[in-house]
């Protein structure tokens, strides 16, 4: 009898992904308006995380740049990238649609509208027990994906993955129009919100990281815990049911979790497109289609991808900064076209 070898996460795949992410992060914190010595950066980080006192040789100013500007920004980029990639993978598995992505499903546009409403109309954030921004963004994102689902699946005949995406395009356009209207009415907030539309990661200190961390952790835990269920969903709702899985419930939990993470990411970073599609697909091409492998690896490669995109965004036209959404779109649109071309089956 043969030995059955199921598709499983290999230890060295995780080790490799961790190494790629670490190297990317260290390179990214070293470059910017002021370049820092990579060796000293490594020493300074080891100094903070170990009980041994090591001198990195950095001046106080260099230490401040590293710890108050660079590292928070790279960590933020990593969290946002990991979340968007993970959410993209979760949406693709839930909707059994290789083109699903937070951006294309109207989630990001809904979250953007919610966040705009929060900034324009919610009174000073100090009045709220928690920052209302992520909550508004979450509600908006949820509304976006719900509308897309209704519009995309209301097509009776010829319901395919494309109809869902077309629904998403329509919903995103509508929500973006509503947001633009608000922006024009509330000219004061215009500048603050404009940055979102193209996506941007500007932060000083750790406040944004701390703001989104709880949401991102919840999303990560729920989606990773459900990864085996998404593999069962790949045979369709009815067969999943015959295998003992309540597909609508799994889908609901996954979509809620993915939307929560997306909304948190959008509330600090704006509308960053294509991460949710490029990263899971690249992982799929290299490591196979099983969600039990794809989702955990998407976390690492999503983080690494957005850290690189952010590095490009802040160095290529220095001292000015390119919105990061421009960089991901520039890399992502051709990749998207490639995925669209090579997608077979799944009704595409």
């Amino acid at each position, binding site marked *: 009898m043969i030995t059955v070898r199921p598709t499983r996460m290999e230890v060295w795949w995780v080790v490799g992904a961790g190494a790629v992410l670490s190297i990317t992060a260290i390179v990214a914190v070293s470059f910017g308006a002021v370049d820092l010595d990579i060796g000293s950066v490594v020493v300074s980080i080891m100094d903070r995380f170990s009980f041994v006192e090591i001198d990195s040789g950095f001046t106080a100013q260099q230490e401040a740049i590293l710890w108050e500007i660079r590292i928070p920004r790279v960590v933020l980029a990593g969290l946002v990238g990991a979340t968007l990639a993970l959410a993209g993978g979760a949406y693709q598995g839930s909707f059994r649609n290789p083109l699903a992505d937070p951006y294309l499903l109207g989630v990001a546009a809904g979250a953007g509208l919610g966040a705009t409403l929060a900034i324009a109309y919610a009174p000073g954030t100090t009045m709220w027990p928690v920052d209302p921004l992520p909550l508004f963004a979450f509600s908006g994102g949820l509304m976006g994906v719900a509308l897309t689902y209704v519009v995309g699946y209301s097509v009776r005949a010829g319901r395919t993955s494309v109809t869902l995406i077309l629904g998403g395009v329509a919903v995103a356009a509508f929500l973006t129009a509503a947001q633009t209207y608000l922006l024009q009415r509330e000219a004061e907030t215009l500048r603050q919100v404009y940055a979102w539309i193209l996506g941007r990661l500007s932060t000083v200190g750790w406040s944004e990281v701390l703001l989104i961390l709880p949401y991102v952790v919840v999303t990560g835990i729920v989606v990773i815990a459900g990864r085996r269920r998404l593999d069962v969903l790949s045979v369709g709702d*009815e067969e999943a049911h015959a295998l003992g899985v309540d597909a609508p419930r799994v889908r609901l939990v996954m979509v809620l979790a993915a939307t929560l993470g997306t909304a948190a990411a959008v509330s600090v970073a704006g509308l960053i497109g294509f991460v949710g599609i490029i990263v899971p697909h690249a992982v799929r091409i290299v490591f196979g289609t099983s969600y039990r492998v794809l989702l955990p690896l998407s976390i690492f490669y999503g983080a690494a991808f957005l850290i690189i995109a952010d590095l490009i965004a802040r160095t290529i036209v220095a001292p000015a900064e390119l919105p990061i959404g421009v960089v991901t779109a520039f890399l992502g649109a051709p990749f998207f076209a490639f995925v669209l071309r090579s997608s077979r089956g799944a009704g595409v």
Partner: protein
Amino acid sequence: MSVPVALDDVSVQLGGTTILDHLSLEIAAGTWVSMIGPNGAGKTTVLRCITGAVPYQGTVQIGSSVVAEMQVREVARTVAIVPQHPTLPEGMRVVDYVLLGRTPHRGAMTSESEHDLLLVGQVLDALDLERFADRDVATLSGGELQRVVIARALAQDTPILLLDEPTTGLDIGAQQEVMELIDRLRSQRELTVLSAMHDLNIAGQFTERIVLVSGGRVVADGAPGDVLTPELIDRHYGARVRVEQDAGRVVVVPIRARLEVDESLNDSADGEADDPADKPDEEILDA
């Protein structure tokens, strides 16, 4: 441990039309019953009622449990189904696909156990599928795929097996192979089997009991010789057939209305079939 299945006064309405109309059917533990009927008769719907995939009025029982009161997972540990048109996940390997059958036996967050792997290995072995273990399910031929889907159902390790037209689309050799396989597995594992069948002869050859469903009702139920009659087949399929006996089994031979008339005109039909004058006409009609 064989388990019986019973549908009692089951009705299904979908999209405003009645699909099953007060249908009752009992299948004794450890027996194999074929369900035949014209396209759209409701065969697939009967199977979907048993797995609880479609809302219905009436009761469906497996063993002493009422399906409607069972958890989805509990049902999946008792009933496995081989769908007529399985959805094939892109890029999934045969082993992973067959392992999906173990889903109802483990928690949502646990990996497959050694027992799961052993059982899947045995199933692949029994169905002669070892060499396909690493193949992408989308690359299999019709007969290979049918065996793989049956393998997934067997990995579910349930006492009840439902098959929806398991031989449709297979060549004649693969049809017999699949049916022999089901027969062998059924006796080895003491399974209760209900199969919707498209091919009347295969149904008549392999099962002792045939249920004819038409318009959402059971219109005939019994031994192949009692159900596969020219009258019933004409009434429910609108087909003209001749029924013959072959080594104690019933054989249904479809006949063309026009040829039947020709035959009745010429008593010695044997030589006539080769008459070249008849051929052009036939070919035109076939085209």
